[in-house]
């Protein structure tokens, strides 16, 4: 909208934003990212698109992924076009994100 960074960047930190959301974290990850498949990926679509910012590029061309604060939205597997990079499922019943005010 404008290039003035004080206006385009959120005033709350990303951690504070995610701190408003309840996650009943399951001990087993529901999404697994195969960092090796990511090495050949030129789009890095997940890095921009994941609303929870869970895909972090590493200096050696891989991806580090954390499943704990996931909205279970499905964006990542839909935008990723590398076969086999993301194994996606829902967390076991009763676990994962819990919305209260939306």
């Amino acid at each position: 909208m404008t290039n003035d960074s004080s206006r385009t960047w959120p005033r709350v930190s990303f951690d504070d934003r995610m701190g408003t959301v309840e996650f009943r974290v399951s001990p087993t990850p529901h999404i697994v990212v195969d960092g090796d498949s990511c090495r050949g990926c030129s789009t890095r679509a997940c890095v921009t698109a994941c609303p929870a910012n869970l895909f972090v590029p590493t200096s050696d061309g891989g991806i580090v992924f954390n499943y704990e604060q996931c909205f279970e939205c499905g964006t990542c597997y839909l935008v990723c076009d590398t076969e086999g990079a993301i194994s996606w499922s829902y967390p076991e019943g009763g676990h994962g994100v819990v919305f209260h005010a939306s």
Partner: protein
Amino acid sequence: MTAAPDPFDVIVVGAGPAGSAAALAVARAGLRVALLERGPFPGSKNMYGGVIYGRVLDQVIPNWWDEIPIQRWITRRGTMILTPTQSLCLDFRSQTWAGPPYNGATALRPDFDAWLAAKAEAAGSVLVTSTVATDVVRDPSGRVVGVVTDRPDPATGASTSALRARVVIACDGVNSFIAKAAGLYPGASEQAEHTTLGVKEVLRLPRESIEQRFNLTGREGADFEVVGCTMDVPGGGFLYTNLDTISVGVVLHLPGLAASKHRPEEILAGFKAHPSIAPFVAGGEIVEYSAHLIPEGGYDQIPTLAGDGLLVAGDAAGLCLAAGVWLEGVNFAIGSGLAAGATAVEAIRSGDTTAARGLAGYRARLEANFVLADHKKLRRVPEFLLSGRAQFQYPQLTCDVVEDLFTVRNPAPKQGIARLAWKSARRSRVRLRDLARDGWTAIRSYG
């Protein structure tokens, strides 16, 4: 017959609006129905804008407005076009909507979904929360005869267990893994093309500030739909009033987001900072941040709606209506859920649950009411709305014409609107051929 009879006639997967409506219809007909929900309570996994249009409930829950857990009744509806420095708003208000039978209301999904699920339970449905349906169970002929759940099996000690029934109704929302597992989604690989991501902040503000800022009294509420506020990503924005919070969010087309340099929260921050939006949201403290997908493909992307022993309803069938001035998914989910429930009952009573015969009436039911009639009429809208012209060129063109119209240039004489429009069209590089074609699409869709 040696095996014990199945405990349920119907299994509904997902206790969102579609699932609870389907379970309600089945239970009221006296059949046994299980309503499975993966979250700890109905609504816990669900977010939306959001406004609920309750007309679809009139026949099902008379005087629903006396008991539905709402935030505010919508009496003010704005449709806004933004450019970085301009805004144009069609701001409509009707006091007719402030009393029964009402039109729309803001509501929070944990409240609304729990309320509708409780209706299904009161009618006799068995609600089972914290349980994921992970796959369908088929008989040797391929017919769906139940689902696999992630609940341990007490008899065998296995980590999963199967639950069998005559008909399964998949109301599992936009990702729709049950319908995909059953093979009803041949075009699943193109799903991103027809899907948007919604991100939203719920902001707390004193009730009086909300009423002053939005010009409301009592339980009146406002709803703004916005285009031209999502940077380089096709999409839109929304702003809704709850009782003592407001919901502000953006909806982003996945391919555009994937190719953008801007992240969702950054685009949302830009929307909130727009001079026309900032005064509404200023000082609001974030209570909850959330994200969810929307199926926006419309009529042409609707999957096969029935398989042998299986029906699909709501977002799982892509039935959300996202057509610019309208963003309606909850009512379409309820409408299709009720029709799926009624069809399942009929099929079970007739003893035929095949897609070709017993369950074939489902699509006909949806064609005969608003669910598919509206989608059919608006089938060309989703593609148009996410096009570059609708997203970037027309907002600029429209705002420029209005700005020219209202800019006083004495001593130069005033120019006619046609001339101003022509100048702006040239400036924003809109081709007349496209303008004529899009105008025709709009007339055919909305006319």
